[in-house]
């Protein structure tokens, strides 16, 4: 006992230590991960963000250097504040305030003292700043927009928010991410991949050199340049035409689905959301609740399509053999339907109507009748209605287009289930839903959906998903943009419709909109719309809508135009559509007079009406 006690204790201590080591180093130790090691500072090097070009290789978005004055509070020595403030063009209060704020955050870690110096200021300051201990200038890359147009398409970049960081562990606080438009959709290509440098820290959090002489450092990979499908000249022209008007223009190349222009009006200069004034400007744009310039109306505005929808009602009826191109009805200037003998007015002037002059004169009676027959044929309302609904949906309506724009709306194309929910105890039918026949009622579409529908009609039965990307440097674009999507209507019926739509310009509602030398097919629409003022449903002036494609043979452009509260479709939206078509196809404008009228049109009064809190007239 006396001999063995000490060796036993020694042995026990050794065993306990080894168990403890096992616990610390194997049991509770995760695999060594340099990214988790807080003795190593990870410094990220940011690559060049990709440039954006338009379809004609005009540079739209590039980068510009920006210079921030940085401060490390505890290194700041006594300085001549007067000289310093005049040098940076700041007030003494700013200096003191900023110094206190940054010191509170950290006295050792650099903070931004003054952001976004101009290039001129930088050149001047870079020499002088060395005199002031604790201050230095840091370079950053900002976006530079070489254009004033297409803000909604190009989007903007901003610092990541908490959600971005949670969703994607690529990002850390302070990183830049695309927030709208192309910048958002193609963020992964544009941003490139940031590189990492590993810096050894000491326990006071100071850098003491490269970890392992930088062998583990990862170089950054540059972002890829993009070419987008936008024709910047057409986009610019569209934005000019839409000045002082709310609305949208969407132009698509039918045989590729490429979006030629995506105008949302009013827009803003994309350069407003870059640099020092960014948040101020953003707030200004954000709080404009009348024009809402940050809302992309070409993608987000939902409205009943009005008369252009008659094209689909007609095509469906032709496909289902409800009518033929010879079917005729007599329009008395109105259409009576249902047991209660309700009435739809018609502005076509009355007379015998077939598919051709019903389209060209936009006869309500003809399409109400056709719609009623379509839904009521063979007495199975629900099945007929769903069949009809599916035909309409095959034009890309009533759902997201699955395209490469980060925002969008589904719109509404009702089916039987929709009305069952609406009228649970009531046998609804064609007459209940007759407004659908003329594109009012429950139908809702967005400008891009209408343009896509027009492209499908122009292509005589198929469309490509409208998309914004044309080329990614060193990469291919998504195959879904190369695959045609067929509508459920046979090709021959489109020939009929094509003739009818051409007649709109020859002898119909669009006869004043002809462009010399270009055969245009199109359809106007005038859409009733409502808003709520103090909780009361109030009708506003009609939306002016127009869809068109040209040339008649082998169309190269399909377009939809929406001008909110502008009245007759053929008057405002129609003019803008014709001017856009001429601009795109001929590249110069012969319709100078028409152009001037459009440019001078200012709808400001119209838009202010609901906000003036007094009664007003509509469609003056």
């Amino acid at each position: 006992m006396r001999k063995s006690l000490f060796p036993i204790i020694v042995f026990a201590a050794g065993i306990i230590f080894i168990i403890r080591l096992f616990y610390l180093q194997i049991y509770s130790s995760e695999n060594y991960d340099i990214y988790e090691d807080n003795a190593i500072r990870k410094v990220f090097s940011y690559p060049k963000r990709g440039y954006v070009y338009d379809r004609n290789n005009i540079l739209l978005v590039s980068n510009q250097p920006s210079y921030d004055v940085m401060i490390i509070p505890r290194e700041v020595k006594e300085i001549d504040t007067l000289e310093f403030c005049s040098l940076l063009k700041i007030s003494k209060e700013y200096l003191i305030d900023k110094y206190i704020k940054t010191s509170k955050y950290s006295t050792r870690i650099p903070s931004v003292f003054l952001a976004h110096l101009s290039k001129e200021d930088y050149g001047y300051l870079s020499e002088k700043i060395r005199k002031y201990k604790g201050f230095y200038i840091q370079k950053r890359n900002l976006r530079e927009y070489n254009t004033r147009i297409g803000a909604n398409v190009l989007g903007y970049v901003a610092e990541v928010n908490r959600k971005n960081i949670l969703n994607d562990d690529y990002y850390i606080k302070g990183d830049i991410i695309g927030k709208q438009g192309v910048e958002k959709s193609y963020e992964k290509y544009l941003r490139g991949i940031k590189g990492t440098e590993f810096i050894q820290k000491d326990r006071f959090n100071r850098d003491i050199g490269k970890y392992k002489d930088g062998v583990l450092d990862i170089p950054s990979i540059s972002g890829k340049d993009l070419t987008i499908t936008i024709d910047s000249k057409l986009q610019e022209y569209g934005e000019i035409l839409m000045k002082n008007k709310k609305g949208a223009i969407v132009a698509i190349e039918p045989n590729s689905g490429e979006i030629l222009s995506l105008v949302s009006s009013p827009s803003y200069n994309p350069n407003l959301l870059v640099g020092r004034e960014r948040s101020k400007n953003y707030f200004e744009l954000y709080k404009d609740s009348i024009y809402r310039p940050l809302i992309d109306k070409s993608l987000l505005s939902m409205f009943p399509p009005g008369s252009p929808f008659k094209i689909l009602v007609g095509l469906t009826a032709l496909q289902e053999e409800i009518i033929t191109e010879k079917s005729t009805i007599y329009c008395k200037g109105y259409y009576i339907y249902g047991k209660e003998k309700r009435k739809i007015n018609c502005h076509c002037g009355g007379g015998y109507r077939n598919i051709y002059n019903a389209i060209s004169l936009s006869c309500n009676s003809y399409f109400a009748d056709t719609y009623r027959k379509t839904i009521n044929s063979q007495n199975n309302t629900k099945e007929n209605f769903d069949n009809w609904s599916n035909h309409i949906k095959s034009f890309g309506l009533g759902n997201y287009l699955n395209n490469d724009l980060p925002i969008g709306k589904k719109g509404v194309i009702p089916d039987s289930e929709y009305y069952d929910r609406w009228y649970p105890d009531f046998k609804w039918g064609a007459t209940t839903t007759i407004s659908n026949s003329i594109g009012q009622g429950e139908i809702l579409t967005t400008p891009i959906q209408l343009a896509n529908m027009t492209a499908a009609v122009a292509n005589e039965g198929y469309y490509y998903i409208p998309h914004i990307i044309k080329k990614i440097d060193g990469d291919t674009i998504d195959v879904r943009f190369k695959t045609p999507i067929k509508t459920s209507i046979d090709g021959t019926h489109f020939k009929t419709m094509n003739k009818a739509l051409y007649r709109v310009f020859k002898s119909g509602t669009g006869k004043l909109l002809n462009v010399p030398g270009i055969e245009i097919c199109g359809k106007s629409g005038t859409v009733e719309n409502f808003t709520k003022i103090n909780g009361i449903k109030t009708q506003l002036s009609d939306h002016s809508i127009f869809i068109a494609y040209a040339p008649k043979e082998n169309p190269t452009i399909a377009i939809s135009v929406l001008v909110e509260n502008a009245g007759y479709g053929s008057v405002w939206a129609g003019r803008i559509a014709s001017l856009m078509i001429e601009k795109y196809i001929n590249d110069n404008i012969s319709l100078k007079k028409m152009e001037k009228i459009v440019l001078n049109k200012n709808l400001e009064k119209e838009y202010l009406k609901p906000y003036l809190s007094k009664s007003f007239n509509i469609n003056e």
Partner: protein
Amino acid sequence: MYSERKNIFKIDWTLVLVYIFLVGFGLANILSSSISGENISLFDFNALYGKQFIFILSSLLVIIITLTIEVKFYERFSSIFYLVCIFFVLGLFIFGKEVNGALSWYSFNNLTIQPSEFMKVGTALAISKFISDIQINMKKLSDQLKLLLIIILPLMLIILQNDTGTSIVFFSLFFVLYREGISQIYLLIAFIILSVSILTIKTSISTAILLSLIIILLNYLYKKKKSRRFMNSSMIFLFCIFISFLTDYSYKNILKTHQRNYISVWLNLEKDPIRIKQMKRTILYNLNESEKAISSGGFTGKGYLEGTRTIGNFVPEQHSDYIFSTIGEEWGFVGSSFIIILYIILILRIVALSELQKNNFSRIYGYSVASIIFIHFMINIGMVLGLTPTIGIPLPFLSYGGSSLLAFTLLLFIFIRLDANRINEW
């Protein structure tokens, strides 16, 4: 005479090799923990590793001298060596320099010496000499008191110089006394003091007393020997009560705040998470960082000179008292377990050799050496691993420090010299 000289080379090579390995490995780790990317030159005498290199060269001199001196010299001059050490420790009160609150250093220009390190050697020699004396009877109270005085004197002096850590080392000599036949009762008393005081601090006086009463009652009822059992049991119980109150009083009134904190952390007394967080940044900082560094080493470690926390100097004192955290980080479980096994081999080898000694003086001295090395090993690694309270004493042979290295070298090699002479003893 001739044969005795020859035996200089009959030294125990196991001990020597372990010694050489530990000292060399220590130098390598001191180098790792004290460089920060500059060029490495062993002869850079401003750097810590350069200084340690000089200390190692000096140790070589000590080894040569120690091994050449006549064996009888140690036994004869042990008392004088002890008194000289006492003298130098006393001298600190007049000439000493205070470092980190402890008055334990002589300072000449760049050279500092800590006499308390050598005091361990002196005390070990002195008790070996005292106990091995034929006249001495370990069972006799007067002799026990004399022995106690030899140990208590340096201990008290060092406590007065505010170097509690070093003073605790002298308690290790109890192992020697036990081996040499001191009454079992002392073992019982030591056990009672330790368990009752820990119990008192961890729970309360009443719990501690109640628990000891139950144990003593059970023991009383089942004891076969009937004589004086009531007397004994009540004496022990009274002793328990006394210890419990004494502990409570010292813990609350005598201990300094930081000492109280270390104990409260060690016994897990602090439950308030905010306070624990605060402690992690203050008194627990070292422990917390050293555990993180060791843990980050994993199974094989990050590699020599690759320990990120070592390079970043995250653990203060990582070259001296916390050198084991550098080993843990850079050499991992494999390296640190190996070092622990090496210490166990060293200590048990010394014990085994001691038992072989025919000369009582050599045996007792060997035991003292093993005990002193063991208590350092246990307290230091225990502290770095977070198992024992934070008590700042160096890891023998590995930690940076001249006095410590020279004293441990002297301590060990006197035994190696004594052991080499085993054959000539009758």
